C-alpha cells in the first residue's frame, strides 16, 4: 500500500547467516533496493480507488440479481439516474447551495464565538477565570439534545438550524485554540521578551502564530460537527436543502433519492476537508512536522 523502502530478502539472509558462513564459507548478503522500486506498476491512487470501486460493483451485482431489493436500497444505476434527474431539474444544486450556506453560516457564527472566547481565556487570567470553567461545563451537554429548546427559542425556520450548527462548532474551536495559546513554547516567549516585543507584538508575532496549528485542528473538528449538526438540523421541518429532499424521499420510499442525498453529504464533507487541508499546507508550511510523503 505505502511507498516505504523495501528490502528484498534473498535466501541466505539474516537469520541463516551464521549457518551459511559455516556451511560454505560465503557471506550472507541482502540486496537493498532503491525506494522508487516499491509500488511501481499500479499507481498508488488507482490501488486506493480499487476498494471503493469493488464495493460499488458488488452493490450493482446484488441489485441486478435481486439479492438487494429496490425498496431496501436502490441500485447504483437507479441512483445515478435519479441524480441526473435531480440535477436536470436544478433541485439538487439548489438544495446543496442552501445546505452549504447553513453549514457555513453556523460555522462562521459558532467559530467566531469559539475563537474569540479562546483568545480571551488564553491571553487573560481574568478571561480564563470567567470563560473557561463555563465552557468546560457547557461542552459536556450533547448539543443535539438542545434541539427542542432551540425550536422553542427560534421557531422552526432557519434560525434553530444555524444555531444548532453554531453551538456544535464553537466548542472544538474554543478548546483547540485555547490549548494552542496555552501551549506556545515558553522559550519562544522568553526570546520574544529579550527582543523587546510589546505585549501586542508578542501576541501577534509569537502567541497567535504558535496557536495556529491547533486552531486548524479545531477547525477540522468543527467542520465535522457542522456536517453532523446540519443533518440533524435539517430534520427540523425543513422546506429546502438536502434534508428536505431526504425527508420527502422518505415519505415516498425513494431509496434512490436518499442515497443521492447521502452521497452529496459525503462529497460536501470531502470538499470541506480538502479545503482545510489546503489551508494547512498554505499556513503551516513552516512546520517541521512529518509531511506524510
Amino acid at each position, binding site marked *: 500500500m505505502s511507498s516505504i523502502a523495501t528490502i528484498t530478502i534473498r535466501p541466505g539472509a539474516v537469520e541463516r547467516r551464521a549457518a551459511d558462513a559455516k556451511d560454505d564459507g560465503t557471506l550472507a548478503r541482502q540486496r537493498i533496493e532503491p525506494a522508487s522500486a516499491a509500488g511501481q506498476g499500479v499507481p498508488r491512487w488507482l490501488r486506493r480507488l480499487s476498494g471503493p470501486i469493488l464495493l460499488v460493483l458488488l452493490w450493482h451485482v446484488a441489485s441486478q440479481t435481486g439479492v438487494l431489493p429496490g425498496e431496501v436500497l436502490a441500485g447504483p444505476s437507479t441512483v445515478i439516474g435519479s441524480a441526473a434527474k435531480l440535477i436536470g431539474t436544478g433541485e439538487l444544486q439548489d438544495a446543496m447551495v442552501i445546505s452549504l450556506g447553513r453549514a457555513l453560516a453556523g460555522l462562521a457564527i459558532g467559530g467566531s464565538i469559539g475563537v474569540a472566547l479562546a483568545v480571551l481565556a488564553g491571553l487573560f487570567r481574568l478571561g480564563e477565570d470567567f470563560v473557561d470553567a463555563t465552557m468546560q461545563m457547557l461542552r459536556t451537554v450533547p448539543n443535539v439534545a438542545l434541539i427542542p429548546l432551540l425550536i422553542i427559542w427560534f421557531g422552526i425556520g432557519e434560525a434553530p438550524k444555524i444555531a444548532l450548527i453554531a453551538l456544535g462548532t464553537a466548542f472544538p474551536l474554543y478548546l483547540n485554540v485555547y490549548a494552542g495559546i496555552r501551549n506556545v513554547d515558553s522559550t519562544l516567549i522568553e526570546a520574544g521578551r529579550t527582543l523587546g516585543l510589546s505585549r501586542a507584538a508578542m501576541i501577534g508575532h509569537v502567541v497567535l502564530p504558535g496557536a495556529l496549528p491547533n486552531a486548524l485542528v479545531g477547525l477540522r473538528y468543527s467542520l465535522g460537527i457542522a456536517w453532523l449538526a446540519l443533518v440533524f438540523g435539517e430534520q427540523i421541518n425543513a422546506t429546502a436543502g438536502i434534508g428536505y429532499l431526504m425527508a420527502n424521499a422518505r415519505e415516498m420510499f425513494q431509496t434512490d433519492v436518499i442515497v443521492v442525498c447521502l452521497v452529496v453529504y459525503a462529497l460536501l464533507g470531502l470538499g470541506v476537508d480538502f479545503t482545510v487541508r489546503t489551508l494547512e499546507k498554505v499556513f503551516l508550511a*513552516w512546520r517541521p512536522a512529518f509531511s506524510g510523503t
Partner: protein
Amino acid sequence: MAASLQRNLNVVEAAAPQTAPKQSKAAVPAVRVRGLTRRFGEREVLKNLDVDIAPGEFVALLGASGCGKSTLLRILADLDREMVGHVEVPVRRAVAFQAPRLMPWKKVWRNVVLGLPGRADKARALAALEEVGIGHRADVWPKVLSGGEAQRTSLARALVREPDLLLLDEPFAALDALTRIKAQDLVGELWQRHGCAILLVTHDVEEAVLLADRVLVMKDGIIAHEERIDLPRPRDVADPHFARIRGSLLDWLGVRHGTHGNA
C-alpha cells in the same frame, strides 16, 4: 560611543597587556551587580554576588552545571526578577541562547529583525545575515537551517540590535566540534567589530580562554576565582601559556586533567 571607544583601548591592550585603562573606565561599567542573591525555595543559587563588566569587555563565566551561571545570565537579561540585590545593565542588550529560539513561522530574515521598531527592514536583516555568513539563507524557513546556521541566525538577530551588552548562554554547546570552532571564531570577530560587552556563559574552559578578556569561575553561587587572560589575539590552543591558564582554571573547577603537566 563610550563603548566603541573602550573597545579600541582593549585592542591596543591586546598587544601590550596592561590593565590600567580598563580599571579607570570601571567607574562606569556596562554591568554592575552588587549583593545579588537568588533563591529557589530553600536553596541559594546566587549568594551575595558582585560582578562588574566594563564596556566592550569580553567576560566568560565558567562553571559546572547547576552552579548558577545561567541564573545570573537570566537575571541580566531581565528574564528573572525574583532576586535580591542591585543590578544595572545597559538598556540595549541582546541574548543568544543555547537553542537558537527562532520563531519557526517566520522566514529567517523576518526572525532577524523581529522586535525592531518600524516596518520589517529586509535590507538590514540581509546585512546582518551577510555578516554572519548566511545571507543566502534569508528567505527560507528556520526548519531547513542546520544547527550552525540557526545559531548564526540567532547571533545576527542579537547583533542587529546593536547591543551594548551581548549575553551568550552556552551558544555553542549544541553544535558539533567543527561547527563550534567556526562559530567561536565568528563570535571573536563580531566582538572585535561591534565592540559590545559580552558575557559568555559556558562550561568549556578552552572556549573561555580562547575568547575572553577575563574568566570568572563560578562555584556554589559565588565567584570562586577570577582570571585575566592577557594572551595576544588570535590565541593559540597549543601555546604553553594557554595550556597553563586552562590547567589552572580546570583546577579551580575541581577537574583533574592529563595535560596539566605539559605547561
